[in-house]
């Protein structure tokens, strides 16, 4: 734990804690109506005492919306990325470790998925399954799997050539144990880096789906939905884009910092 206490670690962890607390406690303290209550007298009002972060085109308070949207956005993004790791990790690991025919078959599958734009794929999946939070998670999770699988395969391929893997094989270690004990720990840094980057994209992917009517359903709030809604009023009410945009940016920044520190901690060489 002491090694978490670098400047980067402290800032990242503090930020992430605050964001997580907001996402968890927000819905418990505020009534769900706070995000949808319209104040027709104060549409598109800039930040003021009454509305500290301003209001949107329907006079909804952006502070409440950003707080109540945090949970939806983070829930979807974190679950979707976890899902893509759960699917992509074994796929990439097996493909990269065994190589040859196994690799060819698995990677052609992944390439087929990669050929579709991720958003289009998510769109199709969530259109088939129906629009709700759970299906949005599944859609984004599947759409992101090939990217993770590709990166993990590349790393696994590299690690599988290392002499310590050959040494393990020579001393009678089974393939499964080699993958778990030797390959996995050595590809974990890449998984962490790609995972944190994917989270930012997942938040935005959710926005895209919501915009097309397949993610979060209005009038409920999510960061992505808020960014999409601000699209045609950037010139007259830029704060409507800045508020959710900053929320996404801060979250990604915090995640990247924590991810970096986590990677360093996992590496025994950085002691």
């Amino acid at each position, binding site marked *: 734990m002491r090694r978490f206490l670098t400047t980067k670690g402290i800032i990242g962890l503090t930020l992430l804690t605050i964001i997580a607390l907001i996402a968890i406690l927000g819905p418990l303290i505020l009534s769900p109506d706070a995000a949808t209550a319209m104040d027709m007298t104060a549409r598109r009002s800039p930040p003021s005492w009454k509305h500290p972060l301003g209001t949107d085109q329907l006079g909804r308070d952006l502070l409440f919306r950003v707080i109540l949207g945090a949970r939806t956005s983070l829930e979807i993004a974190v679950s979707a990325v976890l899902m893509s790791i759960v699917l992509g990790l074994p796929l990439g690991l097996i493909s990269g470790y065994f190589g040859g025919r196994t690799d060819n078959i698995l990677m052609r599958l992944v390439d087929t998925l990669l050929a579709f734009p991720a958003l289009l794929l998510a769109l199709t999946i969530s259109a088939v399954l129906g629009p709700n939070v759970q299906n949005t998670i599944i859609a984004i999770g599947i759409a992101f799997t090939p990217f993770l699988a590709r990166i993990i395969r590349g790393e696994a391929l590299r690690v599988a050539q290392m002499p310590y893997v*050959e*040494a393990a094989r*020579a*001393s009678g*270690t089974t393939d499964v144990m080699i993958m778990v004990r030797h390959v996995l720990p050595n590809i974990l840094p890449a998984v962490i880096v790609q995972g944190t980057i994917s989270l930012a994209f997942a938040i935005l992917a959710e926005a895209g789906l919501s915009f097309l009517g397949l993610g979060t359903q209005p009038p409920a709030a999510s960061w992505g939905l808020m960014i999409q809604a601000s699209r045609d009023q950037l010139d007259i009410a830029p704060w409507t884009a800045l508020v959710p945009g900053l929320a996404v940016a801060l979250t990604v920044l915090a995640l990247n910092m924590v991810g970096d520190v986590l990677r360093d901690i*996992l590496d*025994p*060489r950085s002691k």
Partner: protein
Amino acid sequence: MNAPAKPIVSVDHLRVEFPTRGGTVIGVEDVSFTIAPGETLCVVGESGSGKSVTSLSLMRLVEFGGGQITEGALTFARADGSTLNVATASPEVMQGVRGNEIGMIFQEPMTALNPVFTIERQLTDGLILHKGLSQQAASARALELLKLVRIPEPERRLKQYPHELSGGMRQRVVIAMAMTCEPKLLIADEPTTALDVTIQAEILALINRLKREKGMAVLFITHDMAVVAQMADRVVVMYQGRIVETGTVTDIFENPQQDYTRALLAAVPKLGEMKGKTAPERMRLIGDEAARAAAVAPKARKPEVLLDVRHLTTRFPVKGGILRRTVAQVHAVEDVSFTLNVGETLALVGESGCGKSSTGRSILRLIEPTSGEVWIGGRDIRALSHHDLRRARADMQMVFQDPFASLNPYRRLKDQVSEPIQNFGLATGQALKDRVEQLFDRVRLPRAFMTRFPHELSGGQRQRVAIARALAVNPKLIVADEAVSALDVSVQAQVLNLMMELQEDLGLSYLFISHDMAVVERVAHHVGVMYLGRIVEIGPRASVFENPQHPYTRSLLSAVPIADPRKRRFADDLTFKPITSPIFPLGHTPAPSTYTEVAPGHRVLHP
């Protein structure tokens, strides 16, 4: 050297520091030496001794690695008669000196050349830049240079790319590049370390000839005492950033003053020093009383065959065309047969690409052989199922070359050593812990190391861990693939002694794969010389080394530098026959290996 001329370079109290986050690290401290024209100064030392930092400082290249020259003067006598202090010269002046008045040869001929330019382009660039020659004049000079370094068919080479040349030819091109502007000082930083012995001998002879013909001063950086003995006029011995001893080459070798120099020399195996002895002998390390005491009487064993390899053949497919079909085959191992007795060492020697490593891996089935039989303990390893093979691997373990890469950086050492034991379910709980402790004691590592990670250990310590891991399941056979090649000489000697001690105590058999003839002479009972996938000569070590019959064995032995300055044997120019390609078209059936017995157990391949 007679009548020392005005030195070309004099280094005075050089100190180089590397500022890091954890504080300042001193690269070298209080280093002083001079080099006269036509003189070769060898700087010798083990890794981390500061020898490369010294050479990089002379080019002021050390800054690019994050170092700073904080003290001392590096006086260089320029071609126009003026002197220049390299330590304080401006970057512009240094650019004019580098490559122009000081030439440099690097260790790795594969990476010192740019793969996307022709040889001509790489040679002419420097001429056009420094000498202002026209393209035509530069091309003509480039051809001259290739002739100077005696590359065969120089006209054709100009138009070729680096990958089309062999390692030895590439290093000749690198030397030609260093010679483009006729430098007064040539710095050679481990120029032959990455090369095979025969090519090393050629390159060393070439540098010697150029030095004599052009009256250059040569600063030769190496870790290899044998190369020093063959090349140096004067020697600087470095240790941990400081000069330990300076002297003429004969003084250093015959009358070393410092303990460190003596220890370094004692650790170097000298080819030929085992003449007349039949059994291997441990290195006599200064301060290692145990080794001296134990070196007396090796136990006599009744010969009993452990490993019997018959007609082993391994081929790799060469894929080509758009369908990635197999278009040809690399005959990595071709009809190799030998036996290895219990408690003995068979060394496989040869140059890179001769198939010695593939033979070792084929025996353990880390790569699948194409045909042949591998009998060990009454079983044919080749015939075993995947499951039985895993079981059989308890009998045969491997120690790899690179101790940095053969241990998993993410696992504690005790977990890595206990892994084989757990694989075969030999012990659990306290018994497992005891066994691992025993193994650490056995390879003389403190038990405190058990909870450490590989990066916390030095190269030699890691190789001991690798040996402990190999010993964990009480194997009968250990395949040691260049197991000491990556280690510093003093560490190499200790690891070799440990291996020999373990052999005597545990009755281990080693298949010792190595390119180093001097090491092999020291450790092996039997020697097999490999060339192009075949064993060309095999027999008792004394017989093969003292009475080599095959021409390849002879050229290999003649190429090995000897760590004795009175036994210099480089002719002016040596050219060994380059090794031909082991790639054959599909369906090519090579003739079987047939041998003539020239002495008891000593067989030579029929040509």
